[in-house]
């Protein structure tokens, strides 16, 4: 129906505009990007100094990679909602768009940020950490893509929750950790399989868990978001 397609394109424009607003704002302030990059460099340096030239088993190195990604992401992903709350523009957005359009626009922004963060982190990690080699690239790429989407989805809804709290700085990683734990354990396992040279089929179980996690988090978050956002 023409009415439905007009509504759909209006909704898609709304989602895209929320994303573009955050993106242009980020390019002008560089707040989240700077915080993320500083954390990536600092945490990789700590891993590098603690390992020295001795290296570590592949499962430990896979775990350390995602530890770096987790803490770096925690430093920047909450900005998307905290910034609106601090500047008083939450009400402005509430006037302009339905809650779900704001949620998906912010999710898209966090996804781009996480993908960029992961690309930088992985390149630095591969270049600097002795003994970390990816033998099955296909497993690693799928794990990183699905992991990034799951990360962004969970981080977005948790950021919306903590933006209203007074102790938002400390609350974010504390609240995120239990929610992200199933995702972290699965991507760490998939990364270990990729570094050990497993066949692609051997990682099917991990991919199924990651896809299920993403579907559940995105669906539940989009349903919950209206209540978090409105009152």
């Amino acid at each position, binding site marked *: 129906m023409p009415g439905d397609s007009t509504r759909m*394109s*209006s*909704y*898609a*424009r*709304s989602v*895209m*505009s*929320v994303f*573009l*607003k955050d993106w*242009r*704002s980020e390019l*002008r*302030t560089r707040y989240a990007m700077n915080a993320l990059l500083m954390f990536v460099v600092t945490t990789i340096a700590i891993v590098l100094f603690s390992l020295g030239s001795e290296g570590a088993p592949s499962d430990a190195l896979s775990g350390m990679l995602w530890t770096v990604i987790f803490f770096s992401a925690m430093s920047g992903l909450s900005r998307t909602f905290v910034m609106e709350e601090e*500047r*008083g*523009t939450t*009400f*402005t*957005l*509430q*006037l*302009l*768009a*339905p809650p779900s*359009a704001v949620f998906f*626009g912010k999710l898209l922004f966090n996804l781009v940020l996480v993908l960029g963060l992961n690309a930088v982190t992985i390149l630095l990690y591969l270049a600097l950490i002795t003994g970390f080699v990816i033998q099955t690239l296909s497993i690693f790429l799928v794990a990183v893509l699905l992991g990034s989407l799951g990360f962004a989805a969970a981080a977005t809804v948790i950021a919306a929750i903590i933006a209203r709290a007074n102790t938002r700085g400390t609350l974010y990683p504390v609240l995120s950790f239990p929610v992200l734990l199933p995702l972290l354990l699965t991507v760490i396992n998939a990364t270990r399989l990729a570094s050990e040279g497993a066949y692609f089929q051997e990682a099917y179980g991990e991919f199924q868990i990651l896809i299920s996690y993403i579907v559940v988090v995105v669906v539940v978050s989009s349903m919950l978001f209206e209540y978090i956002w*409105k*009152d």
Partner: protein
Amino acid sequence: MTNALTLSGKGLGKSFNGRAVFHDVSFSVAEHQTLLITGHNGSGKSTLMKIICQVLTPSAGHVQVGRADSAGDGGRDLFGFVSPYLQMFEEFSAMENLAVAMGIRGRQWNKREAAALLERVGLDPDRDEPVRTYSSGMKQRVKYAFALLHHPPVLLLDEPAANLDAEGVSAVRSIMAAQRKAGILVVATNDPGDVDTPDVMVDLDARR
């Protein structure tokens, strides 16, 4: 049946953490009418305004807005809102703020129309400095352009003359007069002199 615009609230109440701000507020305004909301500081004027534009959910009662042939068909685009606590995106210029707002509303962007509106509220449309460099009066003018660009049938003004000089107040009076001709005007203020002839009044001091 006429296609007249109506705005009504029935039995509205709002509590925060068990503390009632107001209760049993009812009103009904038709097209070309003005609703005036008065009350002391803390009486809930801004809360009622947010409930009317459907940003806040009332603890009791309900709001209905729409044309006679689509009663209850509420939506964000029905409302334009100006208040001292409404904040613009300060890293963007006035024109960029309007473009962002229309995009997020899912509407088509018309730069010429936006430029004319900025001129109408007394701002230079070519000024490309971010809004954070504007004075509080200029920011208030941007808010009027922000509220009017999508031609809302219902215009809500919370403390309409806040931060404005005499010229700004005069511009606001002409905007209020134009809105009365085009749709419904809702004004919340401590100064009843802001509105010459309200058609319906709600005194929140009597509803605490």
